[in-house]
């Protein structure tokens, strides 16, 4: 009898313990695919934000360092006055899209949820907070340890709960959709299996037949910043095949080009989309997302696709062809560092940690370099068109007015690629100091404030930003000076 009671109690305790173990919160299924609903660029109301001046912000990864630098740029844009359509307005009011990675996703998500309240609340809610220590303490509590014992619940799930509770006030994409206003904020994570960017927008969640409106911003930010090793990937359920989803027309067309390789990038994008909706050959029941920086630590690849392709859910190229955009501004906030090392001061063979760290970070840094080069090439491509047409006209006209040519040109835009990075800090000593800041989710208050200040400084000194200010009769006050 006693033995039986003990067994029963043990069974009950085990059951209770098992149920206490965490399991990832399910992303909700989508009842029915509806391209006119959900978090999509074309579903947001423009209000007074015009397409003619199209502004894209890109926030890189880099922990609190990146969050503070991006936040500093938001503050500077708020304070930038421009003359637009016979009115003096803030440049921040003209921002159309924000694409963010990892640390940069925190100010991006907060701005998506709370708009200008970010300037009163975000520093204390996130930037000045010892987030890393708070997360560690949370993981070491009995409740935290018990939750982490579950096989489908990791440290990033715990972090997501913390961000929901302490940073984003449990806000979900339903709250963001309810505002129906620009900017369209895209938090990016990385799909571990296909190594590609996974943006938190309904167009991506359609592939999973999942409803993004039921996903919290804390969870999206946690996925975007799930730094490999320190934080675990996050799991999302794939309900593909249950909502009547149809791929956009270009996907089949791009797949047709697989053999001819006429545009391998476009074909690869199409095939990646199909990997989510394949329910027969190689179904992917669960999608595991890690830090957005693994696929692109700048956050610029998705905007570059939108600028150079008509096959994108928020294609800027389509808007340009429709003559809606006249000025295109891309402001890249890049918090990349270049930590000093003593490696080359000694003949000693570099240690394992040093070697593995270099192997992990060097390809990422090189990829980021190439991503920024792609932006410059894209700008050149647009500028080259006009140079070519003008050159031909001038050559023909040189033969006499009877030879004047009327060459039809595509709609011309002015392109302003702006870059805010430590690399462009003038004084070498100051530049070195910023380039040696650690990647962490907590920084001293003074460091955060210095990052906010330097963001404004570098932005105001950027050559392209200066050109933009001239074009818009605008001004950004720095060092307490007035415009």
């Amino acid at each position: 009898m006693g033995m039986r009671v003990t067994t029963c109690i043990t069974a009950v305790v085990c059951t209770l313990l098992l149920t206490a173990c965490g399991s990832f919160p399910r992303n909700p299924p989508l009842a029915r695919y509806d391209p006119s609903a959900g978090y999509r660029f074309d579903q947001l109301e423009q209000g007074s934000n015009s397409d003619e001046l199209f502004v894209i912000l890109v926030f890189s990864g880099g922990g609190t360092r990146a969050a503070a630098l991006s936040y500093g740029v938001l503050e500077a844009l708020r304070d930038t006055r421009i003359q637009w359509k016979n009115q003096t307005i803030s440049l921040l009011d003209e921002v159309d899209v924000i694409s963010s990675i990892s640390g940069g996703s925190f100010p991006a998500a907060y701005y998506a949820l709370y708009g200008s309240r970010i300037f009163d609340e975000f520093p204390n809610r996130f930037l000045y907070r010892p987030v890393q220590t708070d997360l560690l303490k949370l993981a070491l509590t009995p409740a935290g340890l018990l939750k982490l014992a579950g096989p489908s619940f990791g440290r990033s799930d715990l972090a997501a709960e913390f961000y929901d509770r302490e940073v984003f006030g449990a806000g979900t994409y339903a709250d963001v959709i309810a505002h129906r206003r620009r900017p369209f904020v895209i938090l990016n994570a990385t799909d571990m299996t296909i190594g590609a960017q996974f943006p938190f927008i309904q167009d991506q969640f359609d592939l999973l037949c999942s409803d993004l409106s039921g996903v919290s911003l804390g969870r999206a930010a946690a996925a975007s910043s799930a730094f490999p090793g320190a934080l675990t990937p996050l799991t999302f359920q794939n309900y593909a095949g249950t909502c009547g989803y149809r791929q956009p027309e270009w996907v089949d067309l791009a797949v047709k080009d697989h053999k001819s390789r006429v545009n391998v990038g476009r074909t690869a994008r199409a095939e990646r989309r199909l990997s989510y909706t394949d329910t027969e050959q190689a179904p992917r029941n669960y999608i595991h997302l890690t830090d957005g920086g693994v696929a692109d630590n700048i956050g610029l690849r998705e905007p570059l696709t939108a600028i150079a392709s008509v096959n994108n859910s928020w294609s800027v190229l389509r808007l340009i062809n429709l003559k809606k955009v006249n000025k295109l501004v891309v402001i890249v906030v890049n918090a990349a560092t270049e930590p000093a090392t003593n490696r080359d001061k000694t003949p000693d063979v570099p240690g394992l940690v040093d070697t593995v760290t270099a192997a992990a970070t060097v390809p990422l840094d090189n990829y980021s370099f190439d991503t920024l080069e792609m932006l410059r090439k894209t700008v050149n491509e647009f500028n080259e068109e006009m140079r070519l047409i003008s050159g031909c006209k001038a050559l023909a006209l040189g033969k006499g007015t009877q030879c004047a040519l009327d060459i039809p040109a595509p709609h011309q835009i002015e392109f302003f690629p702006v870059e805010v990075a430590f690399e462009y800090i003038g004084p070498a000593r100051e530049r070195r100091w910023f380039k040696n800041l650690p990647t962490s989710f907590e920084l001293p208050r003074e460091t955060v404030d210095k990052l906010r200040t330097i963001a404004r400084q570098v932005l105001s000194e950027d050559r392209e930003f200066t050109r933009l200010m001239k074009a818009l009769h605008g001004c950004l006050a720095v060092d307490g000076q007035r415009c």
Partner: protein
Amino acid sequence: MEYVKVTYPTNRFVYIDGEKSGSTNEVLRVDAGTHVFELGKRANYEPASQEVIVEGTTVLFPMAIAFVRKGG
């Protein structure tokens, strides 16, 4: 970047791969590859659609894609 010029006797919208992407008789930018060109729901034009591989164009020599009035 590739360039196309979709021609039609009047000015109307051009749909590339099902999305409104510009107007007829103007040079449009498009990414390389196979695309479907149409002129929208008012089907008073022919052919009804054209599937074309766009590649090797320049801004000076866009690919010409011609539509005509139906029965015209």
